[in-house]
């Protein structure tokens, strides 16, 4: 009888042919699909190989312990044979502090370190408004950072303890009322100024009191004379306070309760300390000024509009270096002789103006992108100008402009290296130049650029990632 074969179970599926799966399929499809692609792939592989072959020995032969470039070269030759090249990171090992702090005196390094840590504590409530989880992460990170770095920098016990108490307190507050953390953000500029430049503790306090006075006058006068005149009166009183009373009050308080930090002159600032001071201050102040300029440019009031347009077009029309030379050279001619107007302050002011002009145009782009209906809806609700801007227009306009705003910030931060042209010690050119002027390190080329470049990359990449996070978070449409 004939046997019949019937399959009682399914065969296990065979794997696809070897050319249709895994890495081979991917390579066939992506690297070797056409003759042109094959040629390009081979070429690319050759270039990559050539780059690695050229650079890898240099990285592998790195020297970390030497006292001069000549010694580095000897060590490399001894280890890798004559003619070999190697990176000489010993220079970074000896001079890293000048790249970070410039000439800031070593016993006071804890001050910029602390100010840098607190910067994040102050930014967190703004960057992650009301989000307990993110706030806790950031503040926890700041706490760990401060414990480690302040210990390494040998900070005195009192400020060490105080700053830890402050951060722990903020951590606790973040759990209960995260909104209140903004108070620290408001106080931070004065605190940072005092930490970095030192001097009497009363100078920042009395200067901040000027703002309190401004607010008090505004509140008291506004029912009597109306909003705008009250604001004007407040500003006048505050300016009088800053110009004429400030110094006397500081001296008086300092006489009664002498307490302060060692004064540090601006010329001792350098490296990334300088870049971050200029960059962060410029970023902080250019955003509100930029918003006001953008609104001014759209205003119906002739004077406001023409002033805004004039400012924006003038500042955007000249290169940043011109403004820096103005800060460094021209202002000295205009001011009375003997005036000691701090060079870093002058540079910060002009860098801020420069960034503000660019931001104003970026934000104007955001304003222009809003449908007209939004403006009309705000009017229909009976909101006055400022409420309409604050509640309806600006939140949408700023959201649209986030990528461009952050681009401007990154550009501003990188532009801080241009201050080298007015004799300030920026990390890229200023510090590198003084290191190379040392006979021990003369002739060193790539190492300082790589070191500085990596730090710049980390900071700018961080900013860019944050902007992407913010865009995702604020995304309300369903595209």
């Amino acid at each position: 009888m004939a046997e019949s074969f019937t399959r009682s179970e399914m065969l296990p599926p065979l794997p696809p042919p070897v050319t249709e799966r895994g890495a081979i399929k991917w390579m066939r499809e992506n690297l070797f699909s056409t003759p042109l692609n094959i040629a390009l792939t081979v070429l690319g592989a050759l270039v990559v190989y050539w780059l690695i072959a050229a650079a890898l020995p240099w990285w592998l032969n790195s020297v970390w312990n030497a006292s001069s470039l000549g010694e580095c070269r000897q060590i490399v030759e001894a280890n890798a044979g004559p003619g070999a090249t190697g990176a000489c990171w010993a220079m970074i090992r000896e001079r890293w502090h000048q790249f970070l702090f410039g000439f800031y005196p070593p016993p006071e390094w804890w001050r910029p370190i602390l100010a840098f840590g607190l910067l994040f504590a102050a930014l967190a409530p703004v960057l992650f408004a009301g989000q307990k989880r993110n706030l806790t992460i950031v503040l926890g990170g700041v706490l760990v950072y401060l414990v480690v770095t302040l210990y390494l920098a040998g900070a005195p016990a009192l400020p060490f303890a105080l700053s830890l108490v402050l951060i722990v307190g903020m951590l606790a507050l973040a759990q209960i009322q995260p909104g209140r953390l903004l108070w620290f953000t408001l106080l931070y500029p004065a605190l940072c100024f005092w930490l970095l430049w030192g001097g009497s503790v009363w100078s920042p306090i009395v200067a901040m009191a000027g703002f309190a006075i401004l607010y008090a006058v505004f509140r008291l006068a506004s029912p009597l004379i109306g909003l705008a005149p009250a604001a004007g009166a407040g500003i006048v009183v505050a300016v009088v306070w800053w110009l004429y009373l400030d110094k006397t009050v500081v001296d008086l308080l300092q006489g009664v309760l002498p307490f302060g930090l060692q004064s540090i002159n601006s010329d001792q600032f350098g490296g990334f300390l300088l870049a971050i001071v200029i960059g962060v201050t410029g970023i902080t102040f250019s955003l509100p000024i930029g918003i006001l300029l953008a609104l001014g440019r759209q205003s119906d009031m002739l004077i406001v509009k023409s002033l805004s347009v004039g400012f924006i077009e003038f500042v955007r029309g000249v290169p940043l270096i011109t403004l820096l030379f103005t800060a460094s050279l021209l202002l000295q001619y205009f001011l009375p002789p003997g005036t000691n107007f701090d060079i870093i302050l002058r540079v910060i002011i002009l860098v801020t103006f420069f960034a503000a002009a660019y931001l104003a145009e970026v934000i104007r782009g955001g304003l222009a992108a809003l449908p007209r209906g939004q403006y009309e809806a705000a009017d229909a609700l009976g909101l006055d100008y400022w409420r309409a801007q604050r509640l309806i227009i600006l939140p949408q306009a700023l959201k649209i402009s986030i990528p461009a705003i952050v681009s401007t910030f990154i550009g501003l931060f990188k532009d801080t290296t241009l201050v080298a042209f007015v004799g300030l010690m920026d990390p890229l050119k200023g510090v590198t130049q003084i290191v190379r002027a040392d006979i021990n390190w003369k002739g060193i080329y790539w190492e300082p650029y790589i070191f500085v470049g990596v730090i710049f990359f980390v900071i700018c990449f961080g900013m860019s990632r944050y902007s992407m996070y913010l865009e995702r978070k604020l995304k309300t449409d369903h595209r």
Partner: protein
Amino acid sequence: MKKSVFFGALAATTLVSGMALAGTLDDVKARGELLCGSNTGLTGFGNPDASGNWTGFDVDLCRAVAAAVLGDPNKVKFVPTTGETRFTALQSGEVDLLVRNSTWTSSRDSELALDFVAVNYYDGQGFMVKKDLGVSSAKELDGATVCIQTGTTTELNLADFFKQNNITYQPVTVADDSEAQRQYLAGACDAYTTDASGLAASRATMPDAENHIILPEIISKEPLGPVVRHGDNQWGDIVRWTFFALLIAEEKGVTKANVEEVLASSADEEVKRLLGASGDMGVKFGLDNAAFKNAIAAVGNYGEVFARNIGEGTTINLARGLNALWTQGGLQYAPPFR
């Protein structure tokens, strides 16, 4: 009303402070600190070390002036100035004195209203080539590629030199010294030209210094010296004579180490006047009588300053050459101190 008061006050402040602008000497004394414009970093002539202390040939002259005027060589603040900002910084009063390897030229004296009060280093532009190029004179550099920093007088000197000798060259322009050294070593140019002192410093730090030679031709005069503002002659005199004091000290064998001893024992009348043991030469400058003694005690005589920073025995290893004293065939010559 408010506005007119404001502008009135502004005008008054300007006027008062303008009138209050005293001589530089009084400013420095009142401030208790000398503001010295320095290079942002030039090997051997002025650069801060790892702990931020400035050292160098130009820096020592600043310290000598500070010692003469204020009695303390450390009461000086070095203000780094770039090639673009240096003269304006001096004119606007941001620095009291500029000692920053600046070449004395007629237009800087006249047009920029500056005073070069002395020449503390006679430099000149030279060429460095690789030995295996087989060139022994700059005149044989016909058709060579030359690395040259842009925007400097060296660029103009180079063009003049090649034109005069009827030979051609191909310029490779670079931004600064380190770039030039890198291009030259990488073979992007046959010759590298800049001031001879800079060439020596570059050569000293090359991995294969023995394969490079500095050609004998010096194609320009670069007298480098301290600069002060035009019109404040008392201050200019002080800087000039502080420098001369260092020269006279070398001539008379007064050193940092033996200055006290010489002061006590010397019978040489000029030395006694210089160190303030007789006469009132210091007071005539508006300074302390021991001013020049302080300057010598702070940095040593000219020869010591030279030897310590750039002279033979240091890595840079420059010979005295034109900067030897006139008694030894050089150009450094101080008028009599009387």
